[in-house]
């Protein structure tokens, strides 16, 4: 049976980071419209990411020896919380900071660490993650993209799909098959680092329903990869990817995705001469959901900091968190039109509709709701 997540507390040293981040954001985000801020960790701004890096806030948990901040997961939690609470556009460096950097540190060779980590921390290199394929979404083990050994290294052939930021990242860490076939499932998969500027790589952007373009189709046509493109052990890709999941699913980005909209709505209510009782209660209800979610996300961070890999608990918090993130725009959409004579301000409407349009993705990316609930069920001792 799944153990309860114990309440945790941020150490004072991590809290001490908060005022500096707030002061930086006050300046860096001044004048940005709410509908842009609402994009937050889906908002790409290379210059902003580099400004953060210049302050040492990219790769905060990577060792100083590799250009990182040498801080623990609690420091990163505070930083992430402040960035996300304000809707800072962190998408450019987010994947490298959250997953690629720690992955390279954990499984990479010394040469890979020396090459990649300092450039991640300085904001020079952005990463994307190649998982889904046309025939392989939730059922990832059925993927077909293949790296075949050659005399010089590897040759990569196949296709990735729905790869966020592939069109503006420098590298992709892709899960590919290095031996066996789709029938071998989890065996024979490996992670490779692909330089997206190599010949044979074609990236085609796919527009989304909100007018943005963040995900892509990526084609690999006989791409020649060097010997050291493999990250970690050959054939261990599935285990490595699974270990990453707790990082991917546990962070505050799974609870604060609609917070800019919620704050914009509250700011709107605070300007009204009178607030409907239903709106007051709705604000309180959402707050009552957010408070324990935040403590659960922090509790996961504490487990990660202690060296555990709370994959099941992370699935649970992500599912609850994304349910909250999706409830916010849907409930506000109703509340804002409950008095049809009072048209909400235009910027609030644009923000609302942006979040309404993209919120279905909250429970798709990083593992669908149905897959996560299956993971939780296994953790409960079912099956």
């Amino acid at each position, binding site marked *: *049976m799944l153990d309860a997540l114990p309440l945790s507390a941020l150490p004072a040293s991590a809290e001490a980071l908060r*005022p500096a981040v707030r002061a930086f954001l006050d300046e860096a985000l001044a004048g940005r419209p709410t509908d842009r801020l609402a994009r937050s960790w889906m908002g790409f701004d290379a210059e902003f990411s580099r400004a953060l890096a210049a302050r040492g806030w990219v790769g905060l948990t990577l060792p100083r020896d590799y250009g990182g901040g040498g801080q623990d997961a609690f420091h990163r939690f505070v930083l992430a919380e402040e960035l996300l609470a304000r809707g800072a556009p962190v998408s450019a460096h987010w994947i490298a900071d959250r997953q690629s950097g720690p992955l390279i540190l954990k499984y990479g060779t010394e040469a890979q660490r020396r090459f990649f980590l300092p450039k991640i921390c300085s904001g020079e290199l952005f990463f994307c993650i190649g998982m889904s394929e046309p025939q392989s979404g939730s059922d990832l083990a059925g993927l077909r993209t293949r790296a075949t050994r050659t005399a010089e290294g590897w040759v990569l052939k196949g296709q990735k799909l729905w790869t966020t930021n592939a069109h503006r990242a420098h590298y992709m860490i892709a899960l590919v098959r290095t031996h066996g076939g789709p029938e071998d499932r989890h065996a024979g998969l490996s992670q490779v680092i692909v330089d997206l500027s190599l010949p044979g790589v074609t990236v085609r952007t796919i527009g989304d329903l909100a007018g943005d373009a963040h995900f892509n189709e990526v084609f690999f046509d006989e791409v020649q990869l060097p010997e050291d493109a493999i990250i970690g052990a050959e054939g261990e890709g599935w285990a490595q990817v699974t270990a990453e999941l707790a990082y991917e699913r546990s962070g505050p980005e799974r609870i604060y995705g609609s917070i800019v909209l919620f704050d914009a709505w509250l700011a709107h209510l605070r300007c009204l001469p009178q607030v409907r009782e239903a709106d007051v209660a709705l604000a309180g209800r959402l707050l009552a959901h957010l408070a324990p979610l935040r403590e659960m996300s922090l509790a996961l961070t504490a487990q990660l900091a202690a060296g555990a890999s709370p994959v099941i608990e992370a699935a649970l918090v992500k599912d609850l968190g994304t349910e909250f993130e999706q409830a916010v725009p849907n409930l506000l959409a109703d509340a804002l039109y409950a008095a049809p004579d009072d048209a909400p301000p235009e910027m609030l409407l644009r923000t609302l509709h942006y979040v309404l349009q993209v919120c279905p993705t909250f429970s798709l990316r990083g593992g669908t709701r149905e897959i996560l609930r299956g993971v939780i069920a296994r953790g409960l001792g079912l099956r």
Partner: protein
Amino acid sequence: MDALLVESFERLLQGACSPATVRTVEREGKAGALWAEIEASGYLHLLVPDEGGGALRDSFPLWLACGAHTLPVPLAQTMWARGLLAAGGLAMPAGPIAIAPAARRVEGGALRCAGVPFGALAQALLLRTPEGEVVCAPLTAATVQRSGVHGSLQADIVFASLPADALRLPTDTDLQAAGALITATLMAGGLQRLLAMTVQYANDRAQFGKAIGKFQAVQQQLAVLAEQAFAARMAAELVCAEAGVLPQRLRAAVAKARAAEAAEKAVAIAHAVHGAIGVTAEYDLQLVTRRLQEGRGDFGSAGYWHGELGRALLAADEPTVPFLLHTLLPGAAARAESAG
């Protein structure tokens, strides 16, 4: 909290509070031998400053256990009341103490406390008068009328006048917040039990040739039940994080509102998975779900506390996350220190 202390408390409840005992107490409305055993165990003094820790965080795991065992007597309420009375240097009334969610003056100046949880068993009552006095009054001269809801130990308690030996407590003692927190914690414990029972049933019960827990539709439901149980527990635990016995009101609001919403969803799922057996008198699920349903309303429903939370949030001149950090979450003091 000493893990051994929690373990021995669990053993006490396992021995003293069998489902049969719960049914007997609920039927007869008498705490009897069960209370004597609890009284003798010494746990009621856990929050008395010089005897136990005197902090909510010490009582939290014990209150969860009370909820999980559907303990039919107000142990948690009495433990809290004794801590409060001891801190004020006051005497301890004998027997179970209940907390009144509200008190109104009725005709002739009598004081009526409606819907007191576990009121049927109480020998003393903590209440706030409409005039703002906070007292602990013995029930020797009060009229106690059970609610009539099947199996419920709630009662309306009426005092013709407050007894002369009622103990007076500081007028700023927030009984409603304390009652809300205690109820929320008991409910969080009940939700854990509900989850355990429902998972067990899903693994045991076979249909179409396999355990129903192997069906994805059932698994998805159980995952939601687990999520609700976890969230309710965290919401209650965050109130108990800091020292002292007086919960911060807005945090208690979060705990109670979240527990009530969780219970609504979780009870529906538990019953759906159990099928008809779950609504029978002889099967123990109903002991948990009836208590949870009743708890949703005790000391204010989700709707009541949502209003209070919403007013506080709207009155704040800061965005949600800073408000959470300053007002609602534990560690606020440490944060203020580092910011200053």
